[in-house]
Structures are given as C-alpha cells and as structure tokens.
C-alpha cells in the first residue's frame, strides 16, 4: 500500500493538553504517540507519555537549573532541510578525576522524520542521529581502539559514565533522573560516533559538528550563540584543510625558486672585466699606499659588480679600502673589506680561522668606464702581502635564494605548528592525552 502524501503546507504536530497527576499542572504533549515520557514543567515529575492517565514514573526534587535550555522547548527550526521542534532537554554529567563536566542534549521531533538530537558542550554543538547500522570494531589496533562506520575509521577518544541530572519536556525513552549510561566516543572529525550502554543494551549514534551560529540561524534564535571554549573532540581543525595545500604550494614555489636560480645562473653575464695583482709592504715612515687601477668597462644593463680579493696571507691580515669610481660621471661606491687568515696546531689538532679570500658585491652599477681606487692597510710588523683583485660583472647572489626559501618556509612551518597545537589541545581532553598527534581523517 502506498503511503499517503503529506498534506499541503507541511505536517502539523499533534499537540495534546493534559494535566499532571502529581501537581495538576497542564502537560503539553508535542510528540503525542511518539514520546515515551514527559516531564511536568510545574513539579518536575516524569510521566509515562504512553499511558492515557500519565502515570508517574519518577518524581524528583527539581532544582531550578542554573543553565536553562539555550533553545526553549517548542522552538522550531530547520536542520538539514527538515523542520524540527525542540520537545525535550536534558543535562548530563560525567565525572573525571573528581571534576564534573556537563553537557546538554536537546530532543528534536518531526512527525515524519522522527527524533533527532542536538548536543551542546561549552559552546560546541553536534547534530546527532541514531545509527542506521552497527559500527564494526576495526582489526587494526595501533594506538587506541578504532571502529568502522559507513567506510570511515573512527578513533577512540573517551569512555566515561554519564549521569542524567536534569530533564525537561518529552523523551522517546522512559527517562529517569539519575540514570547512568556508559558512554564511549570515537572521533573522525567533524563526526563523532557514540555508543551508550545501558542495561546491557548499546545504542549507537552518529554526530556531526555544527557551529553555534548555524544552530542560531536554523532556529532563528535572538542574539548570538555562546562562544565555543577550547577544542572539542570532533571539532574540525581550521588549519587541517590548509595544511596540505600550503605544503603543496610551498613545494611548487620552492621549485619555482630553484628554476629561477638555475635560470639566472645560466643567463647571468658573470664576466671578468678586470684583474690585477699587487704587493703591499707596510712600513714606517710610509709612503702613500693608495693607488688606482686601469679603467675597465662595465657593459649591459645596470647590475651588480663583484670585487674579489685573493691573498697569500698566513697568520696575518690586510684591510683594503676600495672605491669603484665612474670615470665619466664621478659616481663612486666606497667600501672596505678585511681579509685575514690564521692557522696553527694545538692539543685538539690543527686549526684555521678566517679566509685568504673575500668578495663584496656592489649593487646596481650602471654601465660605463670605471676604475678602482685601492688603499691597503696592515700591521707594520708583518711581512709583505701579495694579493690579486678581480672585478666581475652581473654575478648571481645566492643569499637572495636562501632568504626567499626561508620566507616561503616560515608560514608553512607556522601553520603546521598551529595545526599540531590544535590536535594536541583536542587530544589532551581524551583518554589518550599523550598519544602521538593523529592526523584528522586518517
């Protein structure tokens, strides 16, 4: 027999008005025929919703909750395209190391779709529904137990005994204040698989993390949702999606940098335009030490000039004042460089310090006729120093590639560190706080 199509305008929930047999207060049944128990808002008695006389299941001294439902009972909203009404609310508590942790569960009802649940813990929300099939225990047991559900592997996060300590509205089971259930959570962000064991029976549910602002939008609630505190067990990492893309991007950019380096190395002029060999003897009284070289031509576009000094120093030093001067314009670059080299032998063996050669790169020198003014300085007591000076035009500067590589690497490392910190915060709240960081979705 084909089911009748739903009436135009959507289903209208069956609402029934009854009275509490304990206090006489009015009872509203929003999911009449579907709910198993209902809580009297007046006296807190839990009543059998299946019984026409609303037999009392339990009475409890209801304390006015310091954290009432954030979504009032009777509020309607659209979850995943389906209209639901909030018909029940409960607060549950687990105790770990004598510290109580509370979370809230909202029971949602649609006459055609049945029940659905929203949970909230410190501003973190989950959209929960009952599993359609049983999860299977994973055979691969490495760091912590895993279960498989609908082709996804979920890692054990936490097991605890949950106590129901506050109820309000209607429930699809005969709820009791004080009822205890053994709850085990497995995570595969943004999903969580929860097994609740009560009286030998395990009920599995699947949840998906939902931002508080989406809940507020779905139920058209006033104001803004409470801010989420910390990292929740199945909260999707905001860094995880970027992590792989950033490292792929880094690899592509580093490759681009390598290609650029090879290209500039191949196509750079890197030509020797001047070479000269000199000998410097320092003495006293000293004559004028400075001298000028022959002129040489720097061709091409404005580019750098490398001045290299090579010496025969041995346990000695020399300082060379250089000026690269344009013969025609009088533009000059003035710079100096010490060259020193020391060596010896001690109890650790032979050692050396410094170098016999030094190079300095003059930036962006326009083409033209140039000469060098050289003024050497050295100790008067040291022997003469022989040195050569070479000038090269348009040389590749490798330090730029090093700086570029570091500039590319730092953001990639930063986001990796942020991602790892996020996972560490997540797992610090689990039964496996010292486990290695398990990548999300693995």
């Amino acid at each position, binding site marked *: 027999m084909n089911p009748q199509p739903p009436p135009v305008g959507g289903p209208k929930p069956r609402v029934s008005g009854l009275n509490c047999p304990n206090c006489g207060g009015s009872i509203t049944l929003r999911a009449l025929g579907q709910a198993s128990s209902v809580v009297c808002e007046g006296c807190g008695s839990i009543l059998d919703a299946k019984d026409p006389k609303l037999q009392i299941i339990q009475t409890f001294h209801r304390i006015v909750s310091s954290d009432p439902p954030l979504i009032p009972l009777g509020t309607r909203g659209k979850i995943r395209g389906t209209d639901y009404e909030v018909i029940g609310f409960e607060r549950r508590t687990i105790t770990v190391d004598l510290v109580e942790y509370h979370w809230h569960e909202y029971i949602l009802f649609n006459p055609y779709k049945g029940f659905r649940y929203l949970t909230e813990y410190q501003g973190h929300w989950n959209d929960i529904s009952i599993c359609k099939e049983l999860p299977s225990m994973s055979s691969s047991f490495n760091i912590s137990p895993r279960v498989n559900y609908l082709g996804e592997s979920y890692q054990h996060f936490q097991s605890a005994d949950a106590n129901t300590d506050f109820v309000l509205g209607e429930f699809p089971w005969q709820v009791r204040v004080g009822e205890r259930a053994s709850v085990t959570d497995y995570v595969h962000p943004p999903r969580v698989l929860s097994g609740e064991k009560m009286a030998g029976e395990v009920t599995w549910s699947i949840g998906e993390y939902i931002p508080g602002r989406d809940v507020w939008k779905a139920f058209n609630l006033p104001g803004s949702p409470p801010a989420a505190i910390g990292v929740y067990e199945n909260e999707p990492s905001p860094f995880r999606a970027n992590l792989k893309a950033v490292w792929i991007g880094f690899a592509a*950019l580093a490759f681009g940098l390598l290609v650029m380096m090879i290209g500039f190395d191949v196509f750079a002029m890197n030509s020797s335009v001047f070479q000269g060999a000199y000998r410097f003897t320092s003495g006293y009284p000293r004559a004028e030490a400075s001298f*000028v070289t022959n002129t040489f031509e720097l061709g091409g576009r404005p580019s750098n000039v490398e001045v290299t000094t090579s010496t025969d120093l041995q346990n000695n030093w020399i300082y060379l004042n250089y*000026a690269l001067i344009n013969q025609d*314009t009088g*533009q000059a670059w*003035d710079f100096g460089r010490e060259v020193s080299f020391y060596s010896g032998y001690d109890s650790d063996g032979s050692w050396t310090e410094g170098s016999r050669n030094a190079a300095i790169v003059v930036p962006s020198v326009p083409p033209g006729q140039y000469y060098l*003014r050289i003024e050497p300085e050295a100790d008067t007591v040291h022997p003469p120093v022989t040195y050569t000076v070479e000038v090269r035009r348009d040389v590749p500067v490798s330090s*730029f590639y090093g700086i570029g590589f570091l500039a590319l690497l730092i953001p990639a490392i930063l986001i990796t560190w942020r991602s790892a910190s996020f996972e560490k915060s997540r797992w610090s709240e689990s039964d496996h706080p010292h486990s290695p960081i398990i990548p999300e979705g693995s």
Partner: protein
Amino acid sequence: MFRQIYMLYGLLILATVGYAQYNGWSLDTMNQLKNVPKSVRDNPGSYRSVYSGYHHYTGGK
C-alpha cells in the same frame, strides 16, 4: 583562504627575488658618493675613504 594568501605571498617573494637578481641588488653595505673629482685618478691620496683608518680586531688579546 589561507592557501590563496600564501600562494600570493609566495609569488610576491619569487617576484622580489627575481627583481633583486635582475637589477643586481646586494646585501653588502657601502657608501655611495657623487661627483668624485677626476683629479683622484692622478692623485689617489686626495680621496678620503669613509672606511680608512681601519682598526684590526685582535680578539681582546
């Protein structure tokens, strides 16, 4: 969003490195002068370098 920003940042880095190489930038420090007289060529001692009068560091010994 971050990956787009990172790629844009990375391309900017590559462009800067390429521009620096092409235009012959340098990380070495030096003093730039204008209008050095042509007489320096004949009388090098008349030029006074800002780096002259160097004091060699002896490591405190």
